[in-house]
């Protein structure tokens, strides 16, 4: 069974981040253990955000590849995850 690792870059007070959080929670229910989601607070883990060149949150990386900066559509996000499975 393949897995997908999603890094969800956020910061406190970020307006769009809760929407991404909600989408990922719904997708986690759908994909179960195959989907691993890590919430990365860019104000704490600055080095990780810098590695990806992230300039704004929310941002989403899938299996080490930055896929979205800004709030993606749920279908877009799902497609990006399915491509890695």
């Amino acid at each position, binding site marked *: 069974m*393949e*897995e*997908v*690792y999603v*890094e969800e870059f956020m910061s406190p007070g970020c307006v769009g981040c809760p929407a991404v959080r909600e989408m990922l929670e719904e997708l986690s229910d759908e994909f179960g253990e195959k989907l*691993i989601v*890590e919430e990365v607070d*860019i*104000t704490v*883990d*600055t*080095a*990780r*955000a*810098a*590695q*990806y*060149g*992230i*300039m*704004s949150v929310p941002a989403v990386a899938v*299996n*080490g*590849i*930055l*896929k*979205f*900066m*800004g709030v993606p559509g749920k279908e877009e996000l799902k497609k990006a995850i399915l491509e*890695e499975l």
Partner: protein
Amino acid sequence: MNKEKRIGIFICHCGKNVAGGLNIESLVEISKHIQRVVYVAENRFSCSEDGQVAIQKAIQDQQLDRVIVAACDPSLHLLTFQRCGEKTGIEPQFVDLIDIRKWTMHGSPHKVSPEKALEKSTKLIELAVKRISLKRLIPLVEVKAEQGVLVIGGGVAGLEAGLDLADKGYDVHIVERLPTIGGKMALLYKVFPTNDCAPCILAPKTAYAHIHPRITLLTNSEVKSVEGYIGNFDVEVVQTPRYIDTDKCTGCGECIEKCPCRVVDNVYSAGMGERKAIYIPYDQAIPKKAVIDAQNCLYFKKGVCRLCEKECPTDAINFEQQSKTIDIKAGAIIVATGFDEYNPAPKSEYGYGRYGNVITQFQLARLLDIDGPTAGKLLRPSDGQEPKRVVMIQCVGSRDQKTNEYCSNICCMYALKHAQMIREMVLPDAEVYICYIDMRTTGKDFEAYYRRTRELGIHFIRGRPSEIVEKSNTKNLLLKVEDPEIGHLLEIEADLVVLSCATIPSAGSEQLAQILGVNRDEGGFFKEMHPKLRPVETNVRGIYICGAAQGPKDIPESIIQAKAAASFADGELRKVKIKLPEYIVKVSQLNQGG
């Protein structure tokens, strides 16, 4: 399909910094049982030469293709371990450094019990194992780096960085929110510890920036949006109208003489003087061009007047001017937005805003300036009389848990400077008191400056008044202050009280940080990548910070940082082509609708 990865974990003791705060043996044992982990080792100092050799040997002997080092902050040593792995053929992206030291090290704000540290470290390692085993190799693409730099802020730090880069051959845009460059330094008159005339030592820089063929000055301008990545930032700047054709304006000032509208000048006179609705900020302003303050101009308010237009000998007035959007391509960005002075009104015990004779140090600086609102005469605001007794209060809004916890760094020195100026240049007979917590005079030649101030007969009181009361008849100010050095309560009746207020981030820093995607620290200043080792880099590659935008600092430190920021920008852009992960370019193009 993912081939099964061979992951090695290296747990660093960091001397006792990690080993003193959790059971390393337990962490090693737990790590050995994580799926895909084929090798676990511990090392006293993984970053040492021996530590790195041990990692390289393990990579070869165990045929590892992924490495996790559990040690310290990645902003400190990730590159060290990526280079170490690269030497034995592992792509940098497949070497990760995770910070477990934050939970174990004495002095860390995140320190927890050894049991908790073990639990948290285990979770972090498990997560890192999953992350690195699923990580794909990211193709790198080569992008051309624009040979231009955007500098945000036209104060001494921004000018220094801009001039350094322009002299190296880069095209530099300096964006300044106000109508003139020069920043706060231009308004200080004298600077410590040499008591040089500030405009005299600043003017060579402002004048050079004005005529430099590779520098474009955009005053009255603000950055509205930034997209892109290092080498290719697309910046949108909005320039608000001066209502003056700057090609025609000669700065003669005839329009100003005729303007009937006087308003308090809160910017260049810090509220201590007036200007007209059409004005030139000060004599040495660059550019020396008039500007109309549309909020107060009678024509914009009531549709009448236009006297300036009638009087201008070169027809430079243009009431039809509109805001202009300017697009700039920049390879790197330097943030040098400086600072503001804390408004002490919320510290109601000092009566600022209620008592006319309580002012701030920046206001005092403007009063002491021979080109300031009182032409260098120190006159108290309530009655225009010369004060006989001046009391300065340190750390107002600084080193204070209710406002700003940090030390503002420069207040002790500018209080000493102003005390010297009052005694030596303005009012030799005036008594000057400085009420302080500690005098912090740590820069080069600062201690001698402090001693010289004491020798001038300035009174130093190690304590601060808890309250100021105004006498209704004289508008004098009564202060009670406990001086532990003489052991009793002093009562002082002052003519003028000067508050040494905190240095705070300049207005608009929060919004600019959002536009740039750059983090800010607890005080609201732009945050450096690492406080000691990477003090001018930010979390966004290609964006650098310098001067008081990064934290309170004096002019020499601002210059040093400006030069460092310019050097970093040059270091990246001189490559001409920069290798970046493919996704950075792709995502940026998507965001821009490309």
